[in-house]
């Protein structure tokens, strides 16, 4: 009979053995994860709120998660100064900011010497070689290679002289893609010098150079690993990552690059940085930590739990836990958290959330006094603070003008006295009467186009009520996002709810939204056409950041505030919490290469 021995003694013995083994195992290693990554040195652990990056190849990535991971391993020509606000560019892979020609079209970059790629078997002898200007050109040409993808071409479309034509030529049917084929706008002057000629003299080009998709990659690795390059990064950055250290959907491990050149913590800081002690590390060699570990979380609760048990070095507060950490009335961190040494960093995003008008519309559009007064009245009736309090937990920033917080051109405190910011019902009623619609009489129902999101019908209801206070009627039209875009592009939407996230931290990106030639189906959804505005725009887009430019920004802002092509604005806030052992922490979502500046005091970690 093939049955297990059933004598009581045998059974009991087996039970006992099992229990003892279990107990031994339990007692054997109490406290902490026995044998967890036993690495010496400082480790910085942080969460990513998704299943992880899709790809570590700069040209194949596009999401913010790809950005976060790529920014650790790769570098771009320019980067943002870590501590300076408003954001400013500085050279990263070049010696200094580029020389710009008189007409603003030719940029000459002088590269740093001694920038090494990480050691990798793709190189001869396994040692990473020095980066040269050729590498930059190669990396950017990959954006044009349709075999790799077309996702990121828009970043350099219509920007570099001859590049668009070069792309068409190389990708043509039957033609073999040749990276060595010359392109007139991308010229290698010598080993460390690169000359770029633009189609138009726009300073926005510099911001594109700081985007992760424009990082430098070595030809050897891209060719050798082909599609596997997504998981086998080889860059010039402060950290390296081995293929086996990426556990899909779980975590990624990065290590300090032993060949990283001498880069130092910035010695330029803002007054608020002194409060947090972020200036103390000035002059330290980068990266400061030895390891970076990224934990992937698809759901928020496990991330929050891990943060609260001290396993993560910082975290964003999930929406449902906001009231647990922050006292609503004062928007300050609750005492129990402060007692643990946790720090609170509200980070406004570069959002421009608005309710736009179609300036070509026969009813609300136009530039005559009565039409302007109509729009001003509507603007005065709308209470954005109420929207903020009801739907966003009061966390959004409400501001005047289209330029988001933290950028030059954003009015101080977010307020401009030229703005028609509601609720000012008396003034609104007066203007409405002057516009020719006393008490709203004679004014047709305004169709209000908005997208089908979680609470869009409630938000539309609130709009209806607010406008109803001055006698205006509004009809919400809820559409799926693609249909909403279509309606706006076809100039069908009289009034619509929309948002714009800045492509780069410069107000020019938002002012471009009102530039005449960009009218629908372009990004100027308002179809705003103001010659004076356009003239100023053409002027500032070739100007580098400067007080003169700031003054023009303000002038343009005030034009918009007077003409009211939109009612706005709001920007979302992300709430970051830092732990007491994390130093030099100044979170921002505008760029992601800041882990190299961080420091962890391992002694303070629980």
């Amino acid at each position, binding site marked *: 009979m093939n049955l297990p021995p059933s004598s009581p003694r045998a059974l009991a013995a087996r039970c006992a053995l099992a229990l003892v083994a279990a107990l031994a195992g339990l007692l054997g290693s109490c406290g902490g994860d026995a044998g967890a990554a036993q690495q010496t040195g400082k480790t910085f652990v942080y969460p990513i709120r998704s299943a992880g990056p899709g790809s570590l190849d700069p040209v194949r990535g596009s999401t913010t998660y790809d950005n976060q991971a790529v920014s650790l391993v790769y570098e771009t020509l320019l980067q943002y100064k870590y501590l300076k606000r408003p954001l400013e560019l500085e050279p990263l892979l070049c010696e200094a900011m580029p020389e710009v020609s008189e007409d603003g079209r030719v940029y000459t970059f002088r590269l740093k010497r001694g920038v090494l790629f990480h050691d990798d078997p793709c190189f001869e002898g396994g040692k990473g070689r020095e980066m040269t200007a050729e590498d930059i050109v190669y990396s950017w040409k990959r954006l044009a290679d349709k075999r790799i993808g077309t996702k990121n071409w828009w970043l350099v479309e219509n920007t570099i002289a001859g590049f668009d034509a070069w792309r068409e030529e190389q990708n043509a049917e039957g033609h073999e893609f040749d990276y060595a084929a010359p392109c007139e706008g991308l010229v290698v002057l010598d080993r460390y010098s690169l000359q770029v000629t633009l189609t138009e003299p726009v300073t926005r080009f510099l911001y594109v150079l700081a985007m992760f998709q424009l990082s430098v990659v070595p030809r050897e690795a891209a060719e050798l690993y082909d599609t596997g390059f997504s998981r086998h990064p080889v860059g010039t950055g402060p950290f390296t990552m081995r293929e086996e250290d990426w556990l899909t959907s779980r975590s990624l491990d990065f290590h300090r690059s032993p060949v990283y050149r001498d880069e130092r913590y910035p010695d330029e800081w803002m007054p608020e940085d002194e409060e947090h002690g972020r200036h103390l590390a000035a002059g330290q060699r980068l990266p400061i930590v030895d390891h970076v570990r990224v934990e992937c979380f698809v759901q928020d*609760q496990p991330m929050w739990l891990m943060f609260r048990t001290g396993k993560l070095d910082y975290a964003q507060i999930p929406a449902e836990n906001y009231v*647990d950490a922050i006292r609503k*009335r004062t928007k300050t961190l609750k*005492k129990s958290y*402060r007692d643990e040494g946790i720090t609170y960093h509200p980070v406004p995003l570069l959002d421009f959330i608005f309710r736009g008008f179609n300036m070509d519309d026969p009813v609300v559009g136009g530039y005559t006094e009565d039409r302007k007064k109509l729009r001003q009245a509507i603007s005065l009736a709308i209470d954005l603070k109420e929207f903020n*309090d009801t739907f966003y937990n009061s966390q959004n920033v409400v501001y005047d003008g289209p330029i988001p917080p933290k950028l030059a051109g954003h009015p101080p405190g977010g307020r401009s006295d030229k703005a028609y910011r509601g609720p000012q019902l008396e003034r609104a009623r007066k203007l409405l009467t002057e516009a020719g619609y006393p008490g709203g009489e004679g004014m047709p129902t305004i169709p209000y186009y908005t997208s089908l999101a979680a609470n869009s019908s409630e938000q539309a209801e609130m709009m209806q009520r607010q406008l109803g*206070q001055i006698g205006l009627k509004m009809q919400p039209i809820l559409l799926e996002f693609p249909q909403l875009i279509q309606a706006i592009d076809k100039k069908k939407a009289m009034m619509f709810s929309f948002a714009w996230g800045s492509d780069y931290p410069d107000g020019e990106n938002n002012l471009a939204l009102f530039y005449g030639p960009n009218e629908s189906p372009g990004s100027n959804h308002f179809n705003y056409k103001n010659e004076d505005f356009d003239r100023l725009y053409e002027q500032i887009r070739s100007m580098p950041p400067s007080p003169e430019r700031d003054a023009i920004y303000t002038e343009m802002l005030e034009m918009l505030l007077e003409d009211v092509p939109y009612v706005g604005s709001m920007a979302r806030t992300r709430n970051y919490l830092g732990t007491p052992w994390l130093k030099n922490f100044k979170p921002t979502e505008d760029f992601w290469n800041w882990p190299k500046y961080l420091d962890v005091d391992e002694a303070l970690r629980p």
Partner: protein
Amino acid sequence: MSEEIGPLQKFLRGRGMRKLRRDRMALAALSVIGLYLLIALSVMAGVLDNADVFDRVGPDNVAGFWGTQDGERRLDHHQLRIERVERAAKTTDPTKSLAEFRLGGLRASAGTPEEVLGRVEEAWRALDAVAAYDELDVSPEVGPLFEELDAKVAALYEEPAGFAGFVQSLRMSLGTDRQGRSILFRALYSTKVAVQIGVVASLISVLLGTLLGAAAGYFGGWVDHAVVWLYSTFSSIPWIVLLMVLAAMFRGGALDGTLIPVYAAFCMSFWISPCRVVRGEVMKLKELEYVQAASAIGFGRVRILLKHVVPNTAHLMFINFSLLFIGAIKAEVILSFLGLGVKNEPSWGVMINQAKAEVLNGFFWQIGTATALMVVLVLAFNILSDALQDAFDPKHV
């Protein structure tokens, strides 16, 4: 002269039922089940207001009838109470809004909008006085400030009296959830959802399983093979996987968001158990004399099946019904977790899942209430099915 006794009466007078009636635990369980049924029926009849179940009746996560909450939470609660009245007083027609204002059973206190706004201002001042302190539970100065705040906020509201007052205290007796809804009333409403799902899913599964099993057992041959093949197939797929595949099927379709996918999921997996059991039983019954006699007399096979064989499996149907009912209720919680359960109504599964985040902050009212109500019902059914099995199928394992 003996009358023709119908199968039902025979069943009720049978030995099994008598045994059951003597079992006190079983009777207790039955009465509990009856109570739940009563609650479910009253909810269906409309005893509970929609507002009570779906709308906010108070601040978020207010505690139930015992224990007090810490200072931070009380502060947040008061903030909401003030904000609500303020919003009502600032609409296009404040007098009307204030008159219509409800927070659960509470109304806004009497007065013109200006008077109300004046009180609101005082309340804000009192709130800010408390909010100026860091340590709300320890500093001795905070105590009287809190009392002041309590008073000012209370001045904004009018407590209902009499029966409405009783309902209001009932409403708040077990606290509120993350969106300020009454936990007690939602839990009671969930009873109806649970009973509904349980009854429909189990009934269909039992009927389906019994018919198929009886047919398989009685007719044998290809019918038997077909049925056995069918249930072997379905039981080879883990129940959860079956559920998820079904959810993927229904997603985005017309039925997404209704209970139909839930029913489909349950029925597709629950019919197997009664089918197997009934098939076995019927195979045994087939050999019994009276069945063979009926066949010899010439009664049609289907008639024999339906009139003689199936009724004798009635006890199995009952037993299986109660077992499946339990399975359905517990499974509903899992379905909610996986995102496949009830969507537009509260249910115990919905409540337990929403309570996950609350537990982290030491707020156990929602999970406690939902679990308690569920445990009592499931326990009652467990006891009942045990008793049924003891009574009718003493040889059961």
